[in-house]
């Protein structure tokens, strides 16, 4: 009895559905809808698609649908053709060019149309305008990724010039630099600006896992390969297929794994742990290390052939102490970012605090600077960050040189530069730790002067400074 009731209910509603004015219903949608016949000619379209394409639905009936939407679907594997042939639905991101000559990013959903009798009737295309999502994506991730790397020093500008070159090719990239210099950021920026940006960017820290675990992590394993391997694991190489695999701390990789990586780089295929079937992958490799790989090669701790294979494009990121021009820029950036995140009303740093910060050595580089700013913004209860709001390591340094700092007055970034604790201009108690900024700057000037045969104009150009700045620095360092 119940079954009979259900049958009658379904029958009556099916006939109701048949009587519905489908197009009027679709007109209320905020998505473009297009119906095409098996020859891809337009049967109908909704109002939203009229607005999107700029065509009136009456004039386009019978016209080849592609001429109306002007999409790039044919270059994306022709999902309409596939839907018509295989009767499979699919979703694809692409774009259209409308009557106003505007290219609009679109998410296409293509489904086959079938009559109740089972006969093929064409396809339905749903077009979703994803301009806003794309804009947001660009704002969050940045178009080239470069926006997240801050710097205007000569050395960083050289890196910025190399980034697009590294992004255009598929060659291996080796990024070197001290800890905290931004190796990860650069690797991600290269990936984002590359053709592989639509595919995954996967980072593996080669120094974080023991050899056996790392092998499984990288190459995956099959079920039963070792105790505890109760299911297949794809591994990072396979997960990064089509995209980029970023192997950080590559200098910590064991020799047996170095051989396996070398094989993958050469053959583009590998055996998962315990597996007997080769897996092919298309992955770009970017590596990074804070170690001197050349030295490791000399000591037999790193394979020479792998070194040359990875060292196709080399990017060396300078330590923060060699990026004097970027210091204030980075400090301001981190200060504004953290202040906004913590919703604090701090106005800035005191002069003494700035002097202290600028004379510190930063062995942890940009990461350490960020951590110091975060600490200070958190700890500071009032409007100005003073030296006592800085981490203790910096405070102890300030106590050692407080007498000289108290005697200095700094009002802006330019005067801050002159107030830095450079050897030769300050009492011995104020001389910063060996290897500090002052030492590096003095050495830089000496090197540049030697290279240019003492020509100050050329020296200033080499250092990216004005002649007057060079003159001031020469006096500061007692090099006159």
């Amino acid at each position, binding site marked *: 009895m119940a079954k009979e009731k259900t049958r009658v209910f379904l029958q009556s509603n099916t006939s109701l559905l048949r009587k519905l004015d489908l197009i009027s219903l679709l007109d209320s949608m905020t998505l473009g809808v297009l119906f095409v016949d098996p020859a891809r000619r337009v049967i109908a379209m909704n109002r939203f698609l009229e607005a999107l394409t700029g065509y009136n639905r009456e004039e386009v009936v019978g*016209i*080849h649908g592609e*001429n*109306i939407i*002007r999409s790039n679907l044919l270059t994306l594997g022709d999902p309409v053709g596939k839907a018509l042939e295989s009767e499979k639905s699919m979703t694809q991101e692409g774009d259209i*060019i409308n009557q106003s*000559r*505007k290219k609009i990013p679109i998410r296409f959903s293509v489904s086959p149309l079938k009559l109740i009798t089972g006969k093929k009737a064409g396809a339905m295309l749903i077009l979703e305008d994803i301009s806003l999502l794309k804009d947001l994506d660009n704002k969050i991730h940045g178009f080239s990724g470069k926006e997240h790397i801050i710097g205007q020093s000569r050395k960083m500008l050289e890196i910025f010039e190399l980034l697009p070159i590294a992004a255009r090719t598929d060659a291996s990239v080796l990024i070197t630099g001290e800890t905290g210099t931004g190796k990860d950021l650069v690797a991600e920026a290269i990936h984002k600006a590359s053709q592989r940006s639509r595919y995954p960017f996967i980072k593996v820290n080669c120094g974080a896992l023991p050899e056996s675990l790392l092998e499984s992590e990288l190459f995956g394993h099959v079920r039963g390969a070792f105790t505890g391997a109760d299911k297949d694991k794809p591994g990072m190489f396979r997960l990064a297929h089509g995209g980029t695999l970023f192997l950080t701390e590559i200098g910590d990789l064991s020799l047996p794994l170095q051989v396996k990586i070398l094989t993958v780089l050469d053959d583009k295929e590998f055996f998962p742990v315990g597996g007997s079937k080769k897996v092919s992958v298309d992955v770009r490799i970017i590596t990074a290390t804070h170690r001197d790989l050349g030295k490791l090669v000399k000591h037999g701790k790193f394979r020479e052939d792998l070194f040359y294979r990875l060292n196709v494009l080399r990017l060396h990121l300078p330590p923060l102490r060699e990026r004097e021009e970027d210091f204030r820029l980075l400090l301001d950036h981190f200060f504004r970012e953290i202040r906004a995140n913590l919703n604090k009303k701090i106005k800035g740093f005191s002069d003494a605090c700035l002097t202290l910060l600028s004379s510190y050595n930063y062995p942890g580089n940009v990461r350490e600077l960020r951590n110091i700013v975060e600490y200070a913004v958190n700890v500071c209860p009032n409007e100005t960050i003073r030296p006592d709001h800085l981490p203790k390591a910096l405070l102890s340094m300030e106590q050692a040189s407080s007498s000289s700092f108290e005697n200095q007055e700094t009002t802006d970034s330019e005067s801050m530069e002159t107030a830095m604790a450079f050897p030769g201009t300050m009492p011995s108690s104020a001389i910063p730790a060996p290897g500090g900024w002052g030492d590096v700057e003095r050495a830089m000037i000496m090197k540049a002067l030697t290279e240019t045969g003492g020509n100050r104009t050329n020296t200033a150009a080499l250092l990216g400074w004005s002649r007057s700045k060079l003159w001031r620095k020469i006096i500061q360092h007692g090099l006159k």
Partner: protein
Amino acid sequence: MKILITIHKNEVASRFDLTSEILIAEVDAGEIAGEPRIILLPGTSGEDICGLAIKENISLIICGGIEDTHYQYLKWKKIKVVDGVIGPYEQALKFAIANTLKPGVILPGASIYGEQS
């Protein structure tokens, strides 16, 4: 006058930047002079077609959808563009020679009664 038409099979190609084939015809005193050339491009690139049009000293381009950057560039280079044309390229050429081809026109051959690609 030299006319360039972006084509796909027998029709005007729906997208300028995705065109892989072009037709170049020379028109003299309202008649097609000689046999129009059909050139298969090595790839699809709006910039390359713009460059080719300048190199070939084209006066008029007939195409489907075109991005405003390409359109403005060609206009700046004093090349007339009749875009948004739908239908067989031979008809488009005839209409162009008769000076009756309008941007956004759906040519008679593009309807269900005409030849479809």
